[in-house]
């Protein structure tokens, strides 16, 4: 069976990763905050002059001080509100990109994330989230070296909590496997195992499975799938199709053809064959040997 991977790559080069990594930054304190501080300073000066000045100046200065207090409080409130609105807009933009990625609308997602990273961010957390979304898009366009560069930049330069760091390391390990950096991937997976301390996630299990299949360790892959398939299903939903596809490949490598055909059918029931091939080009031999599960014409 010959299968082509649909080419949805954009016509022109885009996503200049080095400039996005080093050009974007977190916004400095807004000029309005400096203005508020300046007003506060003037106010304090008025208060001091008012308390020490002659009696005919005292009252006007006290009124001015009162006006100043109101002005400073008003400016402070306005600055806070403006900052909150900016952050909300940026969070909404990031949520929109995440939705586009989930809906597999890669080009609009890429355009939006490029726009987001082209302006200073309101917080380091938002910038890290935008970079993570950029890495996911790069993986989709098979720019794995660029994706690894983004992951490494995030791990080395951005303040991350343990959970985010773990997710980024997993994504980086997957990119390494796709780019055939097997030694680096093996080290990264060993590091993940140490960090997870027994609390293995579905994605980590899938990465370990892919590593075993890619390096020809079919028997180890089969042991892993028996142990981890329920976890992958529970945590990854339809992406359990990837585990079934890798399972089929492991069985195929051990010449267990009938079981391989059954696992391949399960995989292609849950995900289109072309999509599985795009994610795991190593599975190509199976696509020539086994038939994908039939799907209704509308669903194909």
């Amino acid at each position: 069976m010959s299968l082509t991977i649909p080419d949805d790559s954009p016509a022109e080069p885009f996503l200049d990763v080095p400039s996005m990594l080093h050009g974007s930054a977190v916004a400095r304190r807004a000029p309005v905050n400096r203005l508020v501080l300046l007003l506060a300073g003037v106010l304090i000066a008025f208060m001091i002059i008012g308390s020490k000045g002659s009696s005919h100046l005292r009252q006007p200065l006290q009124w001015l001080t009162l006006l100043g207090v109101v002005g400073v409080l008003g400016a402070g409130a306005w600055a806070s509100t403006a900052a909150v609105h900016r952050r909300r807009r940026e969070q909404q933009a990031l949520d929109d990109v995440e939705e586009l990625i989930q809906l597999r609308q890669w080009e609009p997602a890429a355009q939006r994330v490029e726009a987001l990273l082209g302006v200073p961010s309101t917080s380091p957390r938002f910038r890290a989230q935008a970079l993570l979304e950029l890495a996911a898009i790069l993986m989709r366009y098979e720019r794995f070296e660029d994706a690894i560069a983004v992951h490494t930049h995030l791990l080395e330069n951005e303040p991350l909590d343990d959970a985010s760091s773990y997710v980024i390391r997993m994504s980086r390990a997957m990119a390494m496997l796709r780019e055939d950096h097997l030694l680096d991937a093996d080290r990264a997976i060993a590091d993940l195992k140490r960090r997870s301390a027994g609390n293995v996630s579905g994605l980590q299990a899938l990465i370990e499975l892919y590593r075993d299949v890619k390096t020809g360790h079919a028997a180890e892959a089969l042991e892993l799938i028996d142990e981890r398939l329920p976890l992958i299903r529970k945590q990854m939903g339809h992406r359990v199709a990837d585990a079934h596809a890798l399972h089929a490949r492991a069985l195929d490598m051990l010449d267990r053809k009938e079981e391989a055909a059954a696992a391949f059918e399960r995989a292609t029931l849950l995900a289109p064959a072309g999509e599985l091939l795009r994610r795991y080009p190593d599975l190509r031999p199976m696509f020539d040997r086994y038939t994908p599960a039939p799907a209704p014409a509308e669903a194909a």
Partner: protein
Amino acid sequence: MISAENAIRVLRRDLTVASAVKFALSGAAVICLLCGPLIGEGLPLIIALVVIAGIWLVLNYRSMRSSVMAVDPPRLIAQGQFDQAEEQIEQVIRGFSFYRTVKLTGLHQLAILRHAQRQWGESATLCRGLLRQRLGTLDRMAQSSRLILIDNLLELDDVYGAYAAILDLYTQRLSLQEAMDLLAVQLDYESRIQAWGAMMHHVAGKVQLCELMPAPAAARAQAMLALAARHTGQLDWVDWLAKRATLLGDIDALVTDRPALKEVFS
């Protein structure tokens, strides 16, 4: 255990009290500032301002503590630690807070907890109580409450109430997650009123949305679509969807929860 009616009563009272306290403290501070230039500087005014600021700081601190208490319950509910979640939620609801959002979040979390505990009536009452409040910019909370309300009403066999709530949601802008949740409850509703044709309308798009759901929800939604396909004679869909549901979820649990699905898997 705090009842739904009691929680709503406490919320209304506390929101009123918090507004009154904020107004009183702000008003007192403004009066002190205005009085300063009129009656000249004086120690009493400074003391008054310090006292007002002190009260504000103490109440603000208590409000922030409530905010912190409101962070954990979703995780505890997801992990099935209902007693701990209940304890923290009750502290948020009963504690004083300047922040309206915190009190509303507490009520919302209680609705989610009751829903997880399968106390559909209590959860529905809480959702309705929350939706009657001014939610302002809390769109996500409002949509989430509506979705939980629909599920509660379906479990209580109130299909008319569920229909009204579903219609309400169609007037709102939904996020992707909310659209998935709406699809799940809508399929449940349509299966109860046997609107098989409507369920199969744009089925390919619905299936694509199901593929983004967590495994149990995806299994249930696709099983329902398989049931609809069976009733509309689209047998290619029946087989395909039923097999997918089998790979994604526990069929025995599905059929126990929704006995109508038995004919799909028999």
